[in-house]
């Protein structure tokens, strides 16, 4: 039920955001939505008030853009939902660490690995990397890399 409600809320908030349902269950999520970079806080607030918890934040590095992937999950019923944010290589997305306090560390981790800073998260010390690390190892420009694609090459 929550899923339907949230879907309505999302579509209302972001009318032209592409929402893709997953019938195969491959992605483990019921649907995923790409929201504009400024809308992530609104979307997150909706998830928080619907009783969801934040499962993970991660990022993907594409040639043209970063993609932030937020996995939200709910205790009951099974309903994992995904919110994506396309964030240019020089853009700074807003932090959601005041909505989900656990997001603070997750954002720090993303900052470690990809160099994406989050505005509003005051604690941006390296989390997993050494204190003086000035490199971002999961960027496709760091170290040994097998491929560097544009986003549409994968999502078609």
């Amino acid at each position, binding site marked *: 039920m929550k899923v339907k409600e949230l879907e309505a809320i999302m579509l209302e908030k972001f009318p032209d955001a592409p929402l893709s349902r997953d019938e195969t*269950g*491959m*992605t*483990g*999520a019921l649907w995923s939505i790409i929201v504009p970079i400024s809308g992530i806080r609104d979307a997150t607030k909706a998830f928080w008030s619907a*009783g*969801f*918890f*934040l*499962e*993970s934040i*991660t990022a*993907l*590095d594409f040639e043209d853009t970063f993609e932030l*992937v937020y*996995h939200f*999950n709910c*205790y*009951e*019923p*099974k309903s*994992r939902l*995904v919110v994506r944010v396309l964030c240019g290589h020089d853009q700074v997305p807003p932090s959601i660490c005041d909505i*989900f*306090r*656990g997001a*603070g*560390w*997750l954002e720090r981790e993303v900052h470690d*690995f990809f160099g994406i800073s989050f505005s509003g998260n005051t604690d941006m010390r*390296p*989390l*997993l*990397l*050494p204190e003086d690390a000035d490199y971002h*190892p*999961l960027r496709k420009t760091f*170290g*040994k*890399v*097998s*491929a560097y*694609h544009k986003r549409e*090459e*994968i*999502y*078609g």
Partner: protein
Amino acid sequence: MAEQDRTEEYRRIYSLNLGPQHPSTHGVLRILLDLDGEYIVKADPIIGYGHRGHEKMGENRQYKQFLPNSSRLDYLSGMIFNHGFVLAVEKLVGIEVPERAQYIRVIASELNRISSHLLWFGTYVMDLGGFTPFLYAFDDREHILDILDSVSGSRLTYSYCRFGGVTRDIDRNFIDMTRAFLKRMESRWADYDDLVTKNIIFIHRTRNVGAINPELARQFGVTGPNLRACGVSFDVRRSEPYEVYDRLDFEVPTGSNGDALDRYYVRFKEMQQSCRIIDQALDLLPGGDFIAKKVPPKLSPPKGEVYAAFESARGLSAFYLVSDGSPGPYRCHIRVPSFGNLNVLNEVLPGTLVADAISILGSIDVVIPEIDR
């Protein structure tokens, strides 16, 4: 020190480095504590000492080459993570797993879960100062390691699962050993109850210590036994059953207060439930292949992404793989349960005693290499 530095504040609060080398930090975890006497004012867990770059390694390897890595994330539930990784890849490539293999994996995973919880049980009581239950638990755990060794050939980092099945079929010997182990554990639970669960000192050390409420758990994404101790019945094996878990009858034990004692109870009951699952799975074990026949040695998955969640001994874990069609993932993200579970310490520790900090840290059951990845 200069006299002007000695303000009132300076004299009252002092900081203590708990770790990275400390008997009770379970790996290389450092917690920077600000103390007022023995009371904690502020806690700041500092992690990353064991960062090995598993995610980067995943991007540079073929899918099957990541198999040994998966056991090394959470080395205490290596089988479960191994299992989870092959689940993700099978989902991505679309491999049908024979039923027998599914049962074998479930049995192995549950054995691994018991061994992980037993180790936690032992080390937790040791954190509280009781040394003997630690060795009793290790004695029991040794039996599990022997069982898993007899089929996977390894005692800790199993690499037992393969895409489409497992490396080796289980035999009569394995089943007999497992049955004997289940029988042995029945009498051990009573001993553990007498020695630890009912012990007044233990109860006083854990009751109302480090309580996490469901709201806080949701804020920080706490999962696993820590979440269930708050009274939320959430288990991936139940909510999105993988393999044959939907055919097996088991309870998801929950607590009510979310304190250390409840976390203890939940894990304790979970071990008993795992025994039940193994017992049923052994009864239901069908014949057939232990590995799918038609799995190409070099996988070529379609483009796309896959997110496979599974319940490790510590909570909701997941592999998030993005494929670009090549034999290796474009992005390999690992959602680890201890990450959120440890993060909550920031909120739970202030206001408690140093001795409680040890008790809480132990009861949350973090595996640091899993967080550091």
